[in-house]
Structures are given as C-alpha cells and as structure tokens.
C-alpha cells in the first residue's frame, strides 16, 4: 500500500495491534489498581474482574494481529514468528515480545483468579490475586510504554522519534483501558437489581470517569508537548509534524477525530460530570446514553491516534539526504 508516494509497510493490523495492546494493557493496569485500591473489602472487585477478563484476550488478539502482519506469515510460513522466542536482544521489539509474553503469562492466571463464579475478596485465590495485581500494574504500564518506544526508537522516523511518544501511548493506553472498563461496567450493571452493588458500580464508574478525565487531561497536555517540541525544533521533526498541523495530510483526521471527538468531547462531558462533585459536592447524574457514548468516543479516539501516528510516521522522513 502506498500513500502520497510513500510505502505503508505497517498497515491496519499494526494499528490495531498498537490499539488493542494499549487497551489491554490499560485495562489490566486499571483492573489491578482498582482492585488494589478497593482494599480488603474488594469494593471494586467486579470492575477488577472485568478488566482481568478483558486484558489477556485484547492483548492476545492484538498480538495475533501483529503476527498476521508479519511478512513471513503472509508468505505462508505460519509459525516462523516463533523465531522471536529464540533470542532476546535489545531490540524494542524483542523486549516488547518478551513483555507481551510476560503480560500474557501474568494476565491469564490473574484472570483465572477471578474465574470461579463465587470468586470474591478473601477467597482462596486472594493472595495470589493480590500478588498478580501488584505485578500487573507495572507490567501493564510497561507494555503500554513499550508500544511507544517501539516506534520512537528510530531516528529514521522523525515523526515518531520523540520520547514523548511513549508517554502519549501510555496515557492513551490507560485512558482507553479505563474507558473500556467504564463501558463494560455500565453494560453489566444496566439491570443490576441490587442497589448496594449498583451503587458501588456507579461509584466505580465515577472513579473511572474521574481518572479518565485526569488521563485525558494529561494526554492533551502531552499532545501539546509532542506538537510543540516538534514544532519548535528545526529540521526533520519540525517538517514531519506538519502532517498533523494545519494543512497537513493527516491534519483533519488528527484534529477532528483524535482531538475533538476522541479527547475534547469526552473530557468536557466528564468534567461536566466530575467537576460539580469536586467543587460543590453536587451529584450530577449523567444521561445514561452519555455513559455509553463517552467511553466509545475515547476508544475510537485512541484508535485514531494510533492510526494517525502509525501512518504519519510512515509518510514523513528525515530532511535532506
């Protein structure tokens, strides 16, 4: 596939991979930290459970996408990707591969601890769950960060070649991870007859929305930094960032879908939801539709961000020769 005369060697599967791995990593981190935060009573146990169930499959599907994009796989060498596991070296992809392995190795038993129907705080898995949760938090962050490092590690790709990219991917991973939990939690509790647990769920939702607001806020800040540093630099980076600046090939996609739809709208609505409580301890009940729409927008924005970044990096290059 070519675009504007550039070859897009990494296409939709890689975009999906970066997105799904991000959501999965975010979900695991969110799940584990909610779980840990919920304390021994397990206030957010259910949320943690949803996250635990989601994380592994999302990352596995994402990784599957990555395998699907491999040249070897497309040429019919189905299992050649196993060569990845024959070595370990300092390539971000090698490190990432092993991180993913660990992620899967940890997130599956972690999910397993939530599997029994009667799984509850203090059950037989409790210690293990707690232990795995402690590991999961940094692991999820590592996987999320690594997706950014993967792209950012190459001076040949000035659009990607920025340490801020890893931060951006981390924040986006967390916010999308949180969003997916928000979405699931809302869906699961839509007909919850038990007022107690329903309240917990609503509280959790509130907490999630609050963290999401924060994460999105930070993400906006990081995007601003990403843009500003590139814009203020000279040469390749300055030139590369033009694809998302006004008039650039990806500018509409970036400003409308990523920033406006994926960040500004959700953050505004969430602020509307959270600020009154913080400021005047007033409960603002969100319109039920909003509770569905917001996380979807965040997720969509997260996907579009990966799209813009992956494509943008490939249709720009260093200046001069």
């Amino acid at each position, binding site marked *: 596939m*070519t675009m*504007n*005369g*550039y*070859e897009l*060697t*990494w296409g939709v599967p890689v975009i999906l991979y970066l997105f799904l791995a991000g959501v999965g990593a975010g979900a695991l981190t969110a799940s584990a930290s909610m779980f840990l935060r919920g304390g021994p009573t397990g206030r957010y146990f259910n949320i943690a459970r949803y996250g635990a169930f989601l994380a592994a499959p999302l990352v596995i599907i994402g990784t599957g996408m*990555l395998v699907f*994009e*491999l*040249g*070897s*796989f*497309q*040429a*019919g*060498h189905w*299992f*050649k*990707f196993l*060569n*990845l596991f*024959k*070595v370990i*070296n*300092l*390539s*971000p*992809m*090698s490190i*990432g*591969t092993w991180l993913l392995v660990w992620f899967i190795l940890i997130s599956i038993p972690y999910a397993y601890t939530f599997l029994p129907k009667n799984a509850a705080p203090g059950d037989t898995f409790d210690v293990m769950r707690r232990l795995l949760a402690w590991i999961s938090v940094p692991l999820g962050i590592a996987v999320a960060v690594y997706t950014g490092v*993967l792209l950012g*590690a*190459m*001076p*040949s*790709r000035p659009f990607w070649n920025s340490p801020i990219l890893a931060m951006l991917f981390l924040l986006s991973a967390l916010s999308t991870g949180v969003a997916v939990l928000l979405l699931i939690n809302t869906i699961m509790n839509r007909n919850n007859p038990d007022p107690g647990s329903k309240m917990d769920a609503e509280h959790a939702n509130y907490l999630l929305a609050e963290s999401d607001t924060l994460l999105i806020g930070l993400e906006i800040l990081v995007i601003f930094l990403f843009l500003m540093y590139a814009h203020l630099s000279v040469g390749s980076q300055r*030139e590369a960032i033009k694809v998302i600046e006004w008039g650039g090939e990806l500018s509409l996609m970036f400003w409308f879908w990523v920033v406006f739809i994926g960040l500004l709208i959700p953050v505004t609505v969430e602020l509307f939801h959270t600020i009154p409580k913080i400021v005047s301890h007033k409960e603002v009940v969100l319109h039920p539709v909003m509770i569905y729409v917001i996380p979807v927008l965040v997720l969509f924005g997260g996907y579009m961000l990966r799209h813009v970044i992956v494509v943008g*990096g*490939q*249709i720009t*290059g*260093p*200046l*001069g*020769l």
Partner: protein
Amino acid sequence: MSVNTKESAKSRRKFLKNIGGIAALTAGATALPKAAISKITKKKVQYGMLIDTRRCIGCHACSVACKSEFDVPLGVYRSWVEYTEKGTFPHVDRSFLPRLCNHCSEPPCVRVCPTNATWRRDEDGLVVIDPDICIGCKYCIHACPYGARFLNPVTGAADKCDFCMHRITQGLEPSCVNTCIGRARIFGDINDPNSEISHRLAENPTTVLRKEMGTKPNVYYIAAEHADEHDQKYRNEYISVKTHRKEKQRI
C-alpha cells in the same frame, strides 16, 4: 521454500557467515605464513562502494542488473536511481543518484531486529539478512534511514542489497558494478590501502548520505547531489526528485 525452518535457519546463517570471511581465515591459516596471519587478524576487510556521480548517466543498467541477478519481484528494489532536477529555464540541471544499501558500520536496521536475522558481518562489513530466520516484522525497514530495505513478497522476509555476496566471494564484481555504463561504481575493500576504491577515496572529495544519522555508511559518493524536494521551501528554487520506485518519496 519447503525447507524446515529451524534446520535451514541454522545452515543458511552458517552459509552467510562462511561465505568469504571466516572461511577465508581458516583457509588462509593453513596456507599463509605467520606474518600474513597476524595481518589478517589485524585488518579486517570492509567492503564498500564509491559512486562517482560525475560518471553516472542515470541509465538504470545497475537497476536492471540487480533485478535480474536476484529476480527481484516487481515493486521492490535493491538498487535504484534518483533523478534530481533543479533550476529555472534555461539554467536547469539534472543529476543522478544511484542508491543501494550503504552497508553501514553502525547499522540502525540491525539494532532493531528482534530475531538477529540481520547483522553486520564482522569479517567483511557486509550487512546481511538471513531470510530463513527473518520473520518479516519490517521493523528494520523503518529503521533504515535510507529506504534501502523492503519486504520481499515472495520470501516474506526483509531484503536488500547484499553487495552481491555470492559474486564477490567468487572474485567477481557486484552485478551492478560490472555493467555500469558510466563506470561510475567502484567496489572493493576500503581497509586495503592498495585497493582501487581506497585510491579513489583518497584522491577525491566524497560524501555519504545522511551523515548526521551516525550510521557510518560504506557507500561513498563523488559529487553527489544532496538536494531534496523539501529543500524547495527553504531555497525558493524548483527541485524535483524522481525515482522509478513504486514509492515515489525518499523514505
């Protein structure tokens, strides 16, 4: 290819390693006087190419020679030529820039490879790819600041110029060199002060591409046109860089 991946991966790598370099040392060790052996261990071969663009006529004999030598599929290129046109009528100029892998001494493509399928051969400086190990993740393709790598759709592995390893180890010139109509391409060992390429490097001012990337390329140019289309904005001059590749832009 229907060979067992594991088995072949091993042997191909051995082949890549053995061809030329290492085997040369062993062969030499039995036959050479001691002094020569110590010399061997001291100065390794570093293959390189010098392209004298004053002599290049943009004829693509190199492009096609390379396609033919390896039956490189349509749409991907080990070797290509860029045409840079600039100026205002009637002061217009066109120059030609033949391109290929630079066989960098500090190859970023190698650093990112998760499988060690690509490496720089210590014995002669060739940056090679073992298609039997390569999984086609395309990371190296992005990491190369020269657009020298591509995914070979037939093998599913990363691919690029290998300085015609199978020829040079037989004492032949690379395929693109041997047919160059302008005799613009000189290939040889730049560590050997007596090689033709060393003489020419010493006699002429040369440049490498994207020096600032720190890759330490081993493909040198005489009188290369480094102008890029992007420069137009800064120079207020018509500059057009054209290539015959499917991807029309430099990386």
